[in-house]
């Protein structure tokens, strides 16, 4: 597979790892802890676990898993909204597979489906629109979940529906934006992150200009990265090099995909359809100002919240959950008091235990190195 296999060369990886070790030698280490490098994006978390990168890098580097997984930060109340709509008899509720297992206070969408709701997984919002065309007698609702990477696809799908006049199609907009969240994270005085591996695919849409405040205001390196293991290792090395050189800037390791200014057509479609929300709820993190978007009034007909008069549910996370601390990088998943006990992939309390990008699920499924060691050794 072109543009993938080249970036998975284990021999080259070994060499890059050696370079990382050498660069590390030039960095003044923090007292009593490893360097904390946050991969913002859940896709990176996934790659780190899939390829066992945490085990490969020197012990003095610790990957801190960031909030960049739309499923992991999906609030319970929002899942309840989805279930509420899905349970209306005329509704065909469509969603990416990711959202199916996330628990709400009335259970997950997969449980609603088992109870009789017509919930269908789609690969693309286009497929949801196609379902609406094929079932004019039903109401097709699409759960538009995701960061900026996904927004253009839903915006274009909505515009297509509007152009064709597909009246039985609408979306619940759960699109969120990463930069306000990074700001919130960094403004927390307890934040102990030394550098960032930046989200490759969000940046492909929004470009790299928006990240400037991170080096400028907080002095932290920020390297936008691809998702193959060599991409990640190279990005890590680039972060470390900045630290070794005592500088901080936004760099782009993933230039083959990420243009500096993002994707103009995509941004245009997003701007046409969406506008900022004053505030948006994040599971574990609470409300963050202007961290999400909603559908503009001009497209109210395609906004399921308006169309069905949905009153958004507001549900507190279970008290035992420590998802917020994990998402902020303040706690390793297996140190959550619920991990592996009340909270398992079969009985997830937090979304982090559900998503294949969720750090808790990854710890549970792939087994953090130390866990496999301590449990069995």
């Amino acid at each position, binding site marked *: 597979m072109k543009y993938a296999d080249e970036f*998975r060369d*284990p021999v080259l990886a070994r060499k890059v790892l050696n370079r990382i070790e050498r660069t590390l030698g030039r960095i003044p280490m923090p007292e009593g802890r490893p360097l904390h490098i946050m991969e913002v994006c859940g896709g990176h978390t996934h790659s780190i676990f899939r*390829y*066992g*990168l945490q085990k490969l890098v020197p012990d003095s580097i610790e990957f801190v898993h960031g909030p960049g997984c739309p499923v992991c930060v999906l609030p319970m109340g929002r899942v309840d909204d989805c279930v509420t709509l899905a349970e209306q008899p005329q509704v065909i509720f469509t969603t*990416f597979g990711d959202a199916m*297992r996330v628990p709400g206070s009335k259970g997950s969408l997969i449980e609603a489906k088992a109870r009789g709701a017509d919930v269908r997984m789609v*690969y693309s919002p286009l497929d949801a629109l196609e379902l609406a065309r094929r079932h004019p007698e039903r109401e097709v609702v699409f759960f538009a979940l995701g960061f900026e990477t996904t927004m253009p696809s839903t915006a274009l799908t909505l515009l297509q529906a509007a152009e064709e006049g597909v009246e039985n199609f609408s979306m619940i907009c759960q699109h969120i934006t990463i930069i306000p969240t990074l700001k919130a994270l960094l403004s927390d005085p307890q934040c102990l992150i030394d550098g960032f591996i930046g989200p490759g695919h969000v940046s492909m849409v929004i470009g790299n200009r928006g990240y400037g405040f991170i080096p400028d205001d907080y002095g932290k390196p920020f390297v936008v990265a691809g998702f193959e293991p060599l991409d990640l290792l190279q990005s890590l090395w680039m972060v470390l090099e900045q630290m070794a050189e005592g500088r901080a800037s936004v760099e782009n390791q993933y230039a083959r995909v990420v243009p500096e200014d993002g994707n103009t057509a995509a941004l245009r479609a997003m701007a046409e359809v969406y506008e900022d929300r004053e505030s948006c709820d994040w599971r574990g993190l609470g409300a963050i100002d202007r961290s999400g978007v909603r559908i503009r009034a001009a497209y109210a007909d395609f906004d399921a919240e308006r169309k069905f008069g949905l009153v958004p549910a507001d549900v507190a996370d279970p008290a035992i959950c420590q998802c917020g601390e994990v998402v902020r990088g303040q706690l390793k998943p297996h140190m959550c008091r619920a991990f592996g006990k009340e909270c398992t992939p079969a009985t997830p309390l937090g979304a982090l235990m559900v998503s294949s990008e969720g750090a808790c699920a990854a710890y549970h499924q*792939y087994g953090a190195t130390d866990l*496999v060691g301590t449990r069995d050794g």
Partner: protein
Amino acid sequence: MDDGGGARRLRGDAVTLAHGAGGRAMRDLIDEIFLKAFGETRVSGLEDQARLALDAFGGGTLAFTTDSFVIDPIFFPGGDIGKLAVCGTVNDLVVGGAKPVALTCSVIIEEGLAFADLHRIAESMATAAAEAGCRIVTGDTKVVPRGAADRIFVNTAGIGAIPADRSLAARHIRPGDALIVNTTLGEHGAAVMAARGDLGLTSALQSDCRPLGELVEALLEAAPDTRAIRDATRGGVATVLNEFAAASGTCCRIAEDKLPLREEVRGISEILGLDPLYIACEGLFVAAVPQAQTEAALAALRKRSGGEAACQIGEVVATPQGRAVMTSFFGGDRLVDMLEGEQLPRIC
């Protein structure tokens, strides 16, 4: 009255509830479709049970298994629900070292299924059974109203004879054994996902659905001390590795760069964000073979149809006990846990 031999018998194009009601229409359906396909099982077919002389079992142990098959679509590249139902049960017998002796065939049909489809399924079962060297000796037919089933479900049960000197079992697996597979991973699941059409994917993939008896016999001849064999079906190779590890108190350690994978299976996995280790197979077994007999085993398999891509994917080690672990081609280790439920396509 005319018993109705001859041209009439199956009126119309499709199954109706009458064909499941126990009367003449049901008899006609069984005669015209199943008995014609399965051959002369009339004597047993007309009693309530098939009867088999114990000689057929050669003094060994009797193996007994069953599976129900519920696939959508019922016809897919490389097979259909009938072939699947025979291969699935045959494979559950042969991986225990048994020679299949007899199968049952029990169908639940949604009214409206075309006779032509049913016929094709029955023919396909007969062909697969013949290939597997066993007979379908008895069966059952139920018809349910529209919407009470999805076209057709097929159950097969099978009995087989395990020769007295064989004792394949996952608990016999020990550290040092090689873990081998006969073919590439996930072809069935990937082919069916594409064939289903709802994901909009097309490919030239074929299901690997096949009876594994000959390959197992070849393996056992070349590697007589083989500890255990299991066919990977739902849950894929990962599930078999976990079962092996759990039953033997060992660790199944595989290497990512050893996993045989077709390009298209990789393509589907990448597009949908799935892990091929968990994708269903229907013609793949995992075997634990003493290291010394591995080369002979692989050589024997590679000579046979369905074994061309045979290779070692890993080995059995002592710890972590009861776990399956994969060394990524990158050198890092990760646990290959059992999945909670099915893998869902994902965007993130």
